[in-house]
């Protein structure tokens, strides 16, 4: 058998749809749900920066609602939220309650 050159080797597995993970909704993993309290929000965007799941929507530099399709309910955003006058702008509530 003729030995194969590198151009004959298969390229391995290729994914041609960048960001296709968005088709997989991770929101069902949640046991706790973050709830946004806009009146306590100072728009610091720390929650946005620290969310490991890109589940906080921001438009034109302003925070909007949570993206519950993907939020896994870790609670990092609530922990890090400074809120206004000691009143958090994110509270965690148990799912299904």
């Amino acid at each position, binding site marked *: 058998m003729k030995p194969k050159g590198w151009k004959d080797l298969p390229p391995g597995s290729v*994914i041609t*749809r960048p*960001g296709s993970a968005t*088709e997989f909704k991770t929101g069902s993993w949640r046991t706790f749900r973050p709830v946004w309290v806009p009146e306590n929000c100072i728009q610091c*965007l720390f929650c946005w*920066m620290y969310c*490991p799941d890109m589940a906080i929507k921001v438009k034109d530099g302003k925070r909007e609602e949570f*993206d519950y399709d993907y939020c896994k309910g870790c609670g990092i955003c609530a*922990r890090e939220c400074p809120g206004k006058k000691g009143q958090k702008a994110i509270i965690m509530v148990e799912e299904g309650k």
Partner: protein
Amino acid sequence: MATTLSLKELSKKEDLFTHGHRMCSGCGAPIVVKQLLLASDYPIIASNATGCLEVSSCISEYTAWKIPWIHNAFENAAATISGVETMCRSLKKQGKIDKEIKFVAFGGDGGTYDIGFQSLSGAMERGHEMLYICYDNGAYMNTGIQRSSATPLGADTTTSPAGSVIKGKTQPRKNMTRIMAAHGIPYVAQASPAHWRDAVTKFRKALEIKGPKFINVLAPCNRGWRSSTDDAILLCRAAVDTCYWPLYEVEDGVTRINSIPKEKKPVEEFLKPQGRFKHLFAPGNEWLLKLFQEEVDREWERLKKEAQEAVSDKS
């Protein structure tokens, strides 16, 4: 011009690492990736060593990456990206591409400190145009929390279990950041995602500097650290405040500490919320906690001296 370093401006950028990835809830690693991608205004091609980040960001036909990304094996993320970089250099010479592309390799601590170490050391020595990012969660997490050379002293892992005789890992962690600095490459740094401005600044700086660069970033893993899902950022902050994970950089051989805590906190603040260190707080094990603190103190004093010498050399 680079995007202004404010959360407001950064938040207007597209997420190049998307939701729908399958890292555990509250994992620190995706925050590191997000900050690196936000830092860059250049197109990036990345390689990824096998590990949690790679396994959970790319499952069958689902990928969370919106940049060209390549996974090869556990031990060769640096070699792989060095090959990609060489290929692009050749294509540029041939006039087939003209963009300025940046090359980044991501590896976990196992993939960096241990199994991928020789390929990383080689790529750095050859002087490739690349930035290596180690996301350090202090164990082989993806395969079930086995100890690595990045695992801290005393930590309970499945291969260094804390029992009645042996109290978790018996060796202190290896100082990988220093080892990389010893390669004499133009830029080496240590960063933490809680200090996002410092981290993004370092990523940017590293991407601008020519030649090989290495940044070690702390990346909490609540599964392996036996902590709660909401404390990744809090623990990163504690790691810096206790000087367990000092923020510093070594640029052209000159060491600079980027943040000196106003008040150096006792290392308990970092250890206590983590179940992997629970036994350090049991009666009779005070010596181990003391030993841990001494290790941290010794390294912090050494680092401060190194940074001071750098200042006096300049003057």
